[in-house]
Every structure is written in C-alpha cells, then in structure tokens.
C-alpha cells in the first residue's frame, strides 16, 4: 500500500489536473519516479524522439479511455491531440507532485469529459465516483458443487485447457476482436482499471492514485473485469 493511501481527503482525480498546474496538488507523497525527471527534461528540451515514444506508448490506452466518453474514433483522436497540447502547454508548470503519466492521463480524462458534455453525451460513471460494491462471484456458481455436496465449492465442470489450441488462433486478430468486444461491455469503472493495468501496464498503486480509489476497490474492479474477459474468451475459444 502506498504511503499516500491514507492521507488527507483528496479532490477527485479529474479535478487534480488543475491543482497540479496551480501547484496546489494534495497528492504530495505520490511523486513520480526518478525516470520522470529524465523524460521531463527531454520534453522540455524539445526531444522529439522522447516525445514520440511517449505518445505511441500510451496511444492504445488513451484511445480506449477516450472512446468511453466520446462517440467516434475521430473525436477520440482529437481528444488525444488536445491532451498532448495540454501536456506541452503545462510542462513548464508541472511540479512532479504526481507522476508524469498520472498527470497526462488526468488531462486526457478532463478533455474527454469536456468533449462528452459538449456532445451532450452521458458521462460514464467512472471509478472516480464508484463506491465499493457488494461481493458477487465472477464465476457462475453452478459450475461448482453446492453446499450440500460432499465437496462443496469444487468444480463440477472444470475449465478446458487452452494449451492444445494453436498459438496462431490465440494471437489471431479475431481473438483480439473478441477481447475488444468484451471490454466494451464492461461497466466504466472496470473498463478504466483493466485498460490501465493490463493494456497500459500500470501498477496497482498508480491506478489507485490516478482514480483515487482504495487498493481493495481497485482489485475488485480489476478482478471482475479480467474474469469477464476470460469468460468471453473461453466461450469464444470453446465454440471452436
């Protein structure tokens, strides 16, 4: 658990972009890693290679997150462009109170929300406003033996191994489309968390800091999201 976890109440992640710009961020302990400094230096120096590698690295996740708010890929692309312009304009004022990545994604979120409002679209309930939900199983209870059974809670129908499937099938475009499809059916908060953790490779702490949620909440959202995607994949792969 990060040191910043239990600090004073915070403003929501989305509004903290402005805080950082004014130097009034409350996430003081969540300062970015030392590697941020090098990157920040490079960007301020006008290093195009460093900039382009950062832009490409986060492109897929940014696009997916923006698409949760706006109606088309074209608009999502515009949101991404506005984000980078905002990043570049704010670079000199960025104080490293949050990690560079977190700060960039907060700008993205603000731009996407603004755009959604302008388009009169419903703003999805992101993890920023979701409170802890009651436990619900992520695997259908009827694949397990019931409480009356001699071995309650053990598999009746264990999952079928995927290792006999050809690698080309698993890595095919069609399989990826199935995953994409499953992701779009997830509740917004789950979709945000799985996009950041599993597509963009953030750590649990980074996601907690960005979305201002507890470790436990982050884990529940991630677990449900992963389980839904796994289930969709299992259905697709079993249908052969």
């Amino acid at each position, binding site marked *: 658990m990060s040191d910043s976890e239990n600090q004073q109440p915070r403003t929501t992640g989305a509004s903290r972009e402005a805080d950082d710009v004014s130097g009034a961020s409350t996430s003081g302990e969540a300062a970015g890693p030392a590697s941020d400094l090098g990157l920040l230096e490079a960007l301020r120096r006008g290093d195009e290679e460093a900039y382009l590698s950062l832009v490409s690295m986060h492109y897929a996740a940014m696009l997916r997150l923006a698409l949760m708010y706006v109606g088309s890929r074209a608009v999502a692309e515009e949101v991404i462009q506005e984000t980078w*312009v905002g990043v570049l304009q704010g670079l000199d004022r960025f104080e490293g109170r949050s990690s560079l990545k977190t700060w960039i994604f907060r700008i993205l979120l603000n731009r996407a929300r603004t755009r959604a409002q302008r388009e009169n679209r419903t703003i999805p309930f992101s993890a920023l406003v979701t409170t802890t939900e009651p436990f619900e199983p992520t695997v259908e209870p009827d694949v*397990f033996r019931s409480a009356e059974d001699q071995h309650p*809670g*053990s*598999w009746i129908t264990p999952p079928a191994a995927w290792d006999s499937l050809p690698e080309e099938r698993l890595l095919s475009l069609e399989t990826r489309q199935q995953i994409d499809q499953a992701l779009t059916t997830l509740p917004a908060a789950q979709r945000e968390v799985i996009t950041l953790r599993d597509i*963009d490779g953030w750590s649990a702490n980074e996601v907690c800091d960005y979305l201002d949620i507890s470790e436990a909440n982050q884990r529940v959202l991630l677990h449900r999201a*992963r389980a839904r*995607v*796994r289930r969709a994949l299992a259905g697709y792969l079993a249908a052969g």
Partner: protein
Amino acid sequence: MIEHAMTCQELVELITSYLDDALPADARQRFERHLAVCPGCAIYLEQMRMTLRLLGTLSAETIPATTQQELLAAFRGLRHMGESR
C-alpha cells in the same frame, strides 16, 4: 484452530490478489497448496494468465501516421512559441 482448506470457488476469486502478490502469507500458502492438487484451478489460473497476456498485446495498437505527424507538428509549434517567449 483447524484451518479450512480453500475451495475451488474461493480460489478463483483470489486470483487477482495472488497475481498481485497481495495475499497474506497464510492465504497464499492455502492457495498454492490447493493449486498443486487441483488441475481445474491450475487450468483456470493458466487461462487468466493467458487473458492478461492477450490484453497486453492490445497496447501494440499502432498510432496512425497522420495522428503522429499532427502530434509532432503540435510539439514543434509549441516549442517554438516557448523559445520566442
């Protein structure tokens, strides 16, 4: 206290904690003990790992050349403004 063995139904709900190394030591031991003797759970965990691997491949979605050009132009434009300030 008699330690109750972890069931398959319990194990599947702890996989994310397990993979994040966020289980308390005793729960981790029970998890691993169960896994060692339960092919069904081993397969489920393997499927989860593959799901994560496949999700990771989505990050490779390449940025369209035009978008990249526009973003680079923005970078150059703003840098110039900065210099003339």
